[in-house]
């Protein structure tokens, strides 16, 4: 059984240290042009991932998590537009590809398991036919038998029997459907897998099964995984690094240990503090205020109206990212040089 062990995770992180990043996102910007004005959903966003590494992206609803996933897949629809930036997978800049090349890259270089993926299966098509569709549209010059074999192998790698190939979606449970979607995601062995809240509709036991499945296929094909979600508990148990997103920016990126033992940015701290634990019963701690509307972002730091450590400079000046040599980055005036 491949349970997600802390030691394993550290080992895989250090192993990847000498490798070049398999994914580099640089200065990615997405704006939605709505009737009410322009909303910058991704604001100059950069990060990188090594092969086999697991990155968690957390944030409240509306912070831009799903926009980031869609932008990396180049699936942003009007009124949204990718305004700039690069998404490098290996040596290829996805933003520079033609539409047809991009279509080929999806699933082959970068796969996306959308939120509520299990509802994305076609109810009147057998699972096998849907998987075959995905292979057919990407691979040429392969016999049908070989393609079928590939689908069956993918189903087996997510712990589903070969019999599932002949079934309809309604014959499967929610967790099984979710695993079918993971199987489709790994059919062509992509280098990067983006999973957008893959388990938010599942109960804890099934959630653990699905996450263990993702972890196992990740090891098998050595893909980098981006896990998007708002469950900090799941992040603590699954990922190597955590990125906290707020109003379209990554306000803190740190290793999972640093994030949980010593969060720096006040918003990450608040997110960690509002987690339930078994030590103090009956204490609920929320984050005061609401996530800001992207149409009317507060001046300076977008978090300043809700921040417990707000200073004068936070109201006027937009903080810039400060990156430490070990890769930890924080966007907060508290850590500006010279400010105590």
């Amino acid at each position, binding site marked *: 059984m491949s349970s*997600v062990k*802390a030691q394993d995770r550290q080992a895989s992180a250090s192993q990847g240290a000498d490798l070049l990043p398999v994914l580099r996102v640089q200065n990615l910007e997405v704006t939605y042009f709505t009737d009410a004005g322009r909303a910058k959903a991704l604001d100059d966003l950069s990060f990188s991932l090594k092969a086999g590494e697991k990155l968690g992206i957390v944030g409240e609803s509306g912070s831009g998590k799903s926009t980031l996933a869609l932008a990396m897949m180049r699936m942003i629809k009007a009124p949204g537009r990718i305004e700039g930036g690069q998404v490098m997978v290996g040596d290829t800049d996805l933003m520079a590809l033609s539409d047809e090349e991009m279509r080929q890259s999806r699933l082959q270089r970068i796969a996306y398991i959308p939120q509520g993926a299990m509802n994305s299966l076609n109810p009147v098509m057998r699972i096998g036919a849907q998987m075959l569709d995905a292979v057919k549209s990407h691979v040429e010059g392969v016999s049908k038998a070989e393609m079928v074999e590939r689908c069956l192998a993918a189903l087996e790698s997510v712990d589903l029997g070969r019999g599932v190939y002949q079934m309809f979606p309604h014959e499967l*449970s929610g967790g099984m459907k979710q695993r079918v979607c993971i199987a489709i995601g790994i059919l062509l062995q992509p280098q990067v897998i983006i999973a957008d809240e893959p388990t938010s509709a599942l109960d804890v036991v099934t*959630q*653990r099964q699905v996450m263990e499945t993702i972890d196992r296929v990740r090891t098998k094909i050595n893909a980098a995984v981006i896990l998007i979600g708002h469950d900090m508990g799941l992040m603590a148990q699954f990922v190597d690094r955590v990125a906290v997103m707020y109003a379209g920016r990554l306000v803190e990126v740190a290793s999972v240990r640093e994030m*949980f033992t010593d969060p720096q940015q006040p918003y990450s701290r608040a997110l960690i503090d509002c987690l339930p634990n*078994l030590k103090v019963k009956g204490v609920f*701690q*929320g*984050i005061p205020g609401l996530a800001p509307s992207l149409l009317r972002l507060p001046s300076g730091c977008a978090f300043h109206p809700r921040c417990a450590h707000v200073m004068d400079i936070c109201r006027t000046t937009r903080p810039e990212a400060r990156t430490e040599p070990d890769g930890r980055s924080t966007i907060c005036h508290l850590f500006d040089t010279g400010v105590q």
Partner: protein
Amino acid sequence: MANLLELNNVSKTYTSGLINKSSNTALRDFSLQLDEDEPTIVTVAGESGSGKTTLAMLLLGFIKPTTGQIIYRGKDISTLRGRERLDFRREVQAVFQDPFAVFNPFYTVDHLLSVPIKKFKLAKSKAEARDKMDEVLTAVGLRPEDIIGRFPHQLSGGQRQRINVARALLLKPRLLIADEPVSMVDASLRASILETLRNLQRDHGVSIIYITHDLTTAYHIAKSIVVLYRGAVMEAGDVEAVIKNPRHPYTRLLIDSIPWPNLDQRWGEQEIIARESTDANTGCPFYGRCSKAMERCKLPAPLFQIEPHQAAACFLYDDQHQIDAACLSEILPA
């Protein structure tokens, strides 16, 4: 001691098909009593398909039990008519899972509050109705001037869910059925909704049946817990005891699978055994997935009382005192 609500050996079976009838027991022989004088919060927990929502529907009178009775303040709820039925409708309120689906997008959110006021004739004038709305919105921590006159799409999920709680509060209920009220809102907003629910119980004397699959929130809000699996009670008792020291193999698996935000706590020590498709209508429903399954588990296990406030339906504890399923409430802490 009068009971506000009594469920006596309630079962619900869904059947389908005309000729080849197949049946599915969603809730099996479930008994629970809530005391009228001491408002409390009881959690009913379980994974999808455990019969949680069937229980909520039964309690609200939307569906009828196949066997057994649901008694609300001395009257079987399926026999309520006229005035009594209206009272029941007012006194038993619900908050549902999805704060997005319960609003009609064409009306402002006050519609959700003004309809019950009209329907139950709670106010004599418009000004009084407005005062009542202001009062309940303030009680759930919202500012009425921010809310009244707005459309659902202008509000966040957390705000909408709190309006649902406000609507329930408006009718001064005796019992609130909360079916997964926080599973669709952000973690940062969960706290405020749970806090609101707890205040309802503490300050307004409302009993709450909190239905959830999330044991962490259950732990913080409730006093007692009933764990269901495929419609049968697996374990019940004091929430502190059940969550910190689960006894039934199913509860153990459930608690072991919670991803705690604690790096030193290993996730998933126990292996998950895939669910077998064999029909488990006889015997322990967890039989096919249990690592400790024995031959005798093919027969249904009664509840064994392990601690004063903890009981599990498992033969592992057959040296303990056996209790009748109908007396489940006696082991729940008051």
